[in-house]
Every structure is written in C-alpha cells, then in structure tokens.
C-alpha cells in the first residue's frame, strides 16, 4: 500500500514548482557517501489481507492472570467513542481552540481520578504506573532535605525495577526496601517505622503485589509526620471502586496504573499511568495538566496550563522530560468511568473480590491454601511448581503470574487473579486441574 495521493501529473507540477527534474534531487544536501544505494531488507509492500493473515493474535482459553495488568469488561461504547478519528488522529492539544474535545475529556479524566483517589489534582497521564512511581520519587527528591527513598518490598517488582533504573541516575543517598510479613503478606510496620525519616520519601502499594490489602490506617499513623514525603501506589485502579480512597490517609501523592479503566490488557501495553497529588505540590508535579478557563467571549474553555514546569519551556530544569503521554488511554478511562458510573464501578470491584474468594474456596477444598493470610482484593498467591504451570498452560489455562523469580523467598508460587471476566465454570476448571 502507498498512502501518497499524487499521480504523475501532480508530481510533474510539484517538481516544476520546486525547479528540479527528478524527485531524488531533494536529497542533494545529503553527502553522497551517506545515501543508501540498494533498497533496504524490509519486507513488503503488503496488501491488507496479507497483513490480516500474518498479524493474527489470539489469547488462551482461560486466563487468571493479573499482577498489574488486568482483563476487565470494557463497554462497547468505549471502543466506539475512543476510536473516533477526531480523538485518535489529533495531536497534543497545543492549539486549544480546535482541541476542546481532547482538553475537556482530559479535564474530566483529571477530575474523576482526583475524586477516586481522594486527592486534589491529577495530571493528564503518565506512561504507566512504574514510571509514575519513578517520577514521584524524583519529585520528592527535589524537595529540600529529602535524600532517600523507601519502598515496600510488596510493591510490584517491575515498579521497583523501573524506580531503580531512574534513581541510578539521580542524586539519592539510598533506596531501602521495607520487608513484608511472611505470614500475612502485609508490610512490616516495625521495619517501616525504622526507615521512615524526614529525609525519606516512602512509597507503599495497596492492594500490594500479592493482592493483599495493606493496613493503611496504621501505615498512615506510622508515616505521617515521620517521613518527609509519602505516596500510595495503586496498580489495580478498579480497587478504588470499593476500597477507601487512598487520599484519605493523607499521602503526598497517589499514583499507579489505570489500565483497568477501559484499556485492554493489550499484550502488555499501552498502559495508563496516573499521578494525583495535593495542590501544594502542583508546581512540582510532572506531566501535562489541563485547566479550565474562558475564551475571549467569556465562554467556558479548556487549555493546557502550568506549562512552565515542562520541558519545552524550562528545558533542562523541567520537572520531567515527559512530552507525549498516554492521552488516548486517559480518554478511554474517562469514557469508561462515565459508562460504568459509581454503581457500576463498585459492583464490578465487588465482583472481582467475590470471584477471588470463590476460587479461593474451591482451591481450599482441594487442600491448596493461599500463601498469605491477610485479606486480599482480587488476587492471591498460591503454591504451584513450574511443571504444573507448564502443564496448565499447554491445556490453554493461564493460572496466573509466576512470582518466585522476583521473590526467591516465596518459592514455587503463582499469583492468581479473578475478575468479572472469569466465570464460575472457569474457576472450577482451574480447581479441577490443580
């Protein structure tokens, strides 16, 4: 396929207007030694049917995998609306007068995310939860006196990895991991108390990587007034539909992954990092933000604001280098939340929690107990060896995400996740095959 419209006559007119004879003359400023002589070893051109045939992907039959990326029901309206070309093929809304659609939708996304997390402001999105965490740590380290970062070991491993990648290049005195209780799976509060000092930015994930709901009241009591800065990571945004808004515990930031809001698992991406904070930190916040304003006639309008924090103005002193973010994913989240409504979000969250308990019950009947004892949201670790995992997978059942590679202290375990996309029958199928 070629997406160029010119026919021979058009090309003739163009060449004449430029004053050249052959199209290749446009490259006269490229030193000849640098020009590719032969064609590249790139396949194609291919017709659409060939592409359809060759690029075909299908999921396994039964999937109980989560661990930071979740399969949830996506109302048909989300795809229908978010695939409108006016949203899909637009650029970042630098020209607000002809981008009000994107701008208002993102403002609505910000409003809903701030509401759900119990925070005052939200940015317009980040790449994913892991980079949102890394950016939060960098933001904290710009606050005078903060030199160290502490993170719970029960924080999603990939988040901790990305955090380490970013902090390896920053001025930081150390990264501490706060252990979890091997019985409950909750973060060890005594260890937390020892690590949380005024020079430390502390981050906790709840529900944590093992699906375990952290004792946030106690965590907040230990941390507030002690840590210089603290944040809550939420990797399953759907939990916000039923658990208390993390903002109510008083953190400086609430961040994480909102892929669950209307974005598919999608083989791992795109994801949707969210970042919410309090007004006092807004000028330190990374990423774009949309503000409400008026046009010349006084009508309500929206535009990007607080741009002076950003790279295109502050360059090397910017709060972040982020430019393109996950705009369309944030739009999908806004449409999803609108389509689901308060009841829908809560009921779906409860379905997930109920499903996890249903499966847990079936497994207990077979003598398989979860690895941790504390209450979970919708996922839990169970013992399972590599062979069993392989056997199930070859039968078209993905029982979950293996965790032992990241946590050698919990050998032979898999994190099993149940959502409203699973059925009772699927749960029975998994239990029977164990």
């Amino acid at each position, binding site marked *: 396929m070629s997406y160029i419209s010119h026919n021979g006559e058009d090309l003739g007119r163009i060449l004449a207007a430029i004053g050249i004879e052959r199209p290749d003359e446009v490259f006269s400023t490229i030193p000849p030694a640098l020009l590719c002589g032969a064609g590249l070893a790139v396949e194609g051109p291919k017709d659409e049917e060939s592409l359809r045939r060759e690029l075909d992907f299908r999921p396994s039959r039964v999937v109980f995998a989560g661990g930071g990326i979740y399969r949830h029901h996506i109302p048909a309206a989300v795809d229908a609306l978010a695939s409108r070309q006016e949203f899909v093929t637009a650029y970042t809304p630098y020209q607000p007068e002809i981008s009000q659609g994107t701008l208002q939708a993102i403002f609505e996304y910000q409003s809903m995310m701030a509401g759900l997390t119990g925070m005052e402001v939200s940015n317009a999105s980040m790449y994913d939860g892991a980079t949102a965490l890394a950016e939060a740590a960098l933001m904290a380290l710009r606050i005078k006196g903060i030199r160290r970062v502490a993170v719970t070991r029960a924080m999603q491993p990939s988040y901790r990895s990305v955090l380490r990648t970013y902090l390896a290049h920053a001025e930081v005195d150390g990264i501490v991991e706060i252990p979890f209780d091997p019985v409950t799976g909750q973060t060890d509060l005594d260890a937390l108390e020892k690590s949380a000092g005024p020079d430390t930015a502390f981050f906790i994930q709840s529900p944590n990587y093992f699906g375990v709901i952290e004792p946030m009241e106690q965590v907040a009591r230990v941390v507030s007034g002690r840590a210089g800065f603290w944040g809550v990571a939420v990797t399953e945004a759907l939990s916000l539909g039923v658990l208390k808004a993390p903002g109510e515990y008083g953190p400086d930031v609430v961040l994480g992954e909102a892929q669950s809001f209307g974005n598919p698992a999608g083989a791992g991406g795109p994801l949707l990092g969210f970042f919410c904070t309090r007004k006092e930190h807004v*000028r330190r916040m990374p990423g774009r933000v949309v503000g409400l304003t008026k046009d010349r006639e006084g009508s309500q309008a929206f535009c990007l604001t607080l*741009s*002076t924090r950003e790279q295109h*103005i*502050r360059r090397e002193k910017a709060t972040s280098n982020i430019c393109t973010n996950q705009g369309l994913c944030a739009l999908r989240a806004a449409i999803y939340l609108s389509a689901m409504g308060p009841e829908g979000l809560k009921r779906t969250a409860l379905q997930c929690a109920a499903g996890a308990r249903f499966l847990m019950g079936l497994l207990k009947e077979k003598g398989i107990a979860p690895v941790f004892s504390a209450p979970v949201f919708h996922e839990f670790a169970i013992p399972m060896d590599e062979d069993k995992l392989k056997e199930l997978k070859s039968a078209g059942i993905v029982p979950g995400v293996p965790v032992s590679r990241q946590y050698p202290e919990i050998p032979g375990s898999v994190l099993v996740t149940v959502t409203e996309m699973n059925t009772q029958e699927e749960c029975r199928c998994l239990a029977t095959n164990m």
Partner: protein
Amino acid sequence: MEIPEQLYYTEDHEWGEMVEDGMMRVGITDYAQHELGDIVFVELVEVGTVVAKGDPIGTVESVKAVSEIYAPVDGEVFKVNGALTDTPELVNQDCYGEAWMVVLKVNDPAQVDTLMDARAYQAYVEAEAK
C-alpha cells in the same frame, strides 16, 4: 518604557532602590515585565536566605516563559512581598511600586555603586533590543 531616575539596575533587568539604612528593595523592570508578558506566578526565596550577587532570589512566570530573578548585590533577604503570590498581575501593573519582590539587607554598600544608573540602563536596553 519607564526607567525611574532614582533606581539602580542590573543586566538581568532587575531594579534596586535603597530604602532605609542599608536596605535595598528589589524588583523587575518595566522592560522585563513587558518582555515576559502577563505574569501568572511569582515565587520568592524565604526571608533570612543569605545570597551572593547573582544568586537566584525567585522566579517569575508568564504562560510561556520562566525567568529567574537574581540578587543585584550580596546580602540577606529581609522581607519578601507575599502579595505577589495571590496577585502576580501586580508585576504587570506596578513593577516599580507595589510589585517589589524582596528587600535585601546589603552587605557591602560599595557594591551598589557598581550597578547601572537609569541612563546606563536605558542605553543597555536599547543596545539589547538591537
């Protein structure tokens, strides 16, 4: 463009005015506020900050630009203009009056004499405009 006679000026377009005993009031010039456009945010250092000449004592922001404000001389920040936090537009309205930014306790009065006077600043601005 307004360049009051009695003030001292820097190459970074700040003005300084000797107010009382060893105190200098500092702000940005008419030229600077005009170049920046509508000011939307002013952030100033805390009272008590000790600064050397050329150290940042705050930032002013318009929608599309950020500009640092530098200390014209060595000293200690004695007062900051809190009103600018809520009404940054004062900088556009009255940059030599209500929109003063900080008052510095000047360490070395001799340093003040190294700053430009109104005529020199006028010439400096004209040269820069070219």
